[in-house]
């Protein structure tokens, strides 16, 4: 990256330096919102979010934002955000923030309890709200879930949502017992979510089940 930056920097240094600050730095930042499903069918898988979060901590740079939230019976709430951080512009401070964030997430994953219902839509709306507030140029929502939404009778989520310019990545989408009987249920569930997310204006929809290939999370499809 430095090598690539060197020659343009040489050319631009003389021209752009006087106009420093004319580009919005936030537009270059990356914001990631990680939703961890804590419903009864998925709570045992929640621990698998740790390596992904660690990968994100190792990948995200100064100025980037990261938030971890849980998906429970009703997830459209600020209280469901377990940890959030915007990394300091100084790399040394950013490293300290990352350590603190790692510890915070570690405690959460150790004490996570299963919820009765699964409100993925609420989590997505909350995530979109958080990401839009950060003003980052690149916005990503990672969902650790089986993608089986299960709402109580009073919770209303049947309305169009907005995920404009957000990349949505479903990670570690586990198969339910019923999916094993009829795989069309699993595939159909993913297809429904794909359509819904893209209809909401999402930039991209991606499913990654192989946690060994975390680098594909941010790779363009």
């Amino acid at each position: 990256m430095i090598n690539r930056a060197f020659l343009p920097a040489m050319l631009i240094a003389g021209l752009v330096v006087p106009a420093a600050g004319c580009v919005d730095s936030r537009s270059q930042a990356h914001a990631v919102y990680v939703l961890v499903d804590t419903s009864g069918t998925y709570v045992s898988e929640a621990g698998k979010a740790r390596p992904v979060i660690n990968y994100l901590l190792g990948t995200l740079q100064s100025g980037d934002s990261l938030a971890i939230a849980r998906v429970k019976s009703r997830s459209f709430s600020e209280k469901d955000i377990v940890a959030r951080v915007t990394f300091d512009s100084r790399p040394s401070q950013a490293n300290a923030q990352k350590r603190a964030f790692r510890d915070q997430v570690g405690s959460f994953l150790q004490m996570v309890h299963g919820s009765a219902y699964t409100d993925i839509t609420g989590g997505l709306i909350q995530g979109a709200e958080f990401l839009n507030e950060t003003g980052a140029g690149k916005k990503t929502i990672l969902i650790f879930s089986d993608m089986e939404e299960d709402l109580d009778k009073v919770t209303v989520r049947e309305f169009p949502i907005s995920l404009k310019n957000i990349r949505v990545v479903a990670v570690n989408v586990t198969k339910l017992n019923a999916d094993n009987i009829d795989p069309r249920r699993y595939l159909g569930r993913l297809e429904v979510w794909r359509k819904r997310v893209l209809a909401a204006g999402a930039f991209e929809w991606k499913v990654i089940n192989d946690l060994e290939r975390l680098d594909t999370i941010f790779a363009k499809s």
Partner: protein
Amino acid sequence: MTDLNSWMIWPDNTVLSVLVVLLVAMIVLYAARVPMHGLIRSTGHALAGPLRLGARWLVAVAEDMKRRNRAVLLAQGRRETGQRVEREFERISTLVTRDLQGYPNLQRKLLEQITHVEEDFQKCGEVMPPPPDWVEAVAAVAQIKTGGGEVVQKILVEIRDSIERIHDKAVAEYRRAYQTRHGILEGFLPYWRSLDKTIRQVDQKMADMQDRAAAVDVHMEKYQQILAGTDEAQATLTNSSFTQFTISIIVLWIALGGALINFKLIALPMSEMVGAGDYLTASLRTADVAALVIILLEASMGLFLMESLRVTHLFPRISNLNDHTRRRMIWISLALLVTLAGIEAALALMRDILIADKQALLQSLASTPAALPGEGWIARIPTVGQMILGFILPFALAFVAIPLESFIHSARTLFGVLAVDFVYAVGMALRLLGSLVRLASRALLHLYDLLIVLPLMAEQMVKSLRNREPRVKARPLETTDKYVSPF
């Protein structure tokens, strides 16, 4: 389909329709032959004329550029050769001051040594005085007959003893004299060696002087050629410029590599100072530009230092400064350069700390713990190396001023030559295009006549028939050629 056939006079008979249309077209073209020829010629002329004019103008421009290039090249060569001659004279002056100033002492020393050697030589030449005349007396005594007399016998024994004593004494004297001469000869040797050494020194100095004089001769000859503005001098200077250009490009590339390493050393720690998340453009971080500005500042300080030292002459104002101000400028630029080098060394250290911190974080984030780096002095080698590199590179970059100056001067010559060649090539292309247009217009005239060949043949026949009747004057076929002259 209807539209396509609309031109046909008899839609049912295509052949007849085509023939009639061709005939009508031929007649119309024949009737319009003279104005059409004129139009084609004037169009060709209108196109070819400016092209040829442009070609001539470009050739004139190229000649002018060539003249200016030559003047600049010769002026540059004159200045450089003048400086070289000046420097050679300075060296000769130093030689003369250093060596020939002490020449009287050297000469005195030489004369003293020679005198000493001569004196010693004369001393060596001194021989023992010849033996006394008593040898003859001894011979006379030897002839005396003893006659058995005891007294005479005794006298003779006495004489013999006396002679033997005198002989021993003379031989001892003789040996002592030779010993003294050998001693003198032994003392002779250091003087001789010293003399030899002194003469060698003189010889060496004279040879140096001759070499310098020969170099001055070569430079003076070159200078004279440049002054005379000979083609040979121009060719030599052009070749020299090309060589200089190539060498300076290579050195500048090497320097660019050094600058890149320097950039890598300080870009990361600069983000700690100006922030890693600030961007000037979509892909250009402020920290990168800040690091580059530091490097450019170092290069600038190096440039000023070299200018102040009069190593380079890119800024005449600096080299024309009085010695006091210039010396002050040398110290200021050197101090700034040292400060920047110190900052770079500190940044290099900070880079190492940041990388170590990042590594530690990544290791703590990794599911499987990675091996820790070794402790002790071996682990500190990269840190120390980076710091040394950070301190040295600014000074190394300072010397970029020299190839940069060479590059600028030689690039003027190179690009001048290339520009002249380019203008010549464009001029040639325009000239070629003009000729092509002219030839094309002529070809078009013939093509036009080919299309109306039948009416022309008929005209020819009519003319030949009319030629039999003397009163009737036929219109010549080449009439149009007389109205509009070709080019």
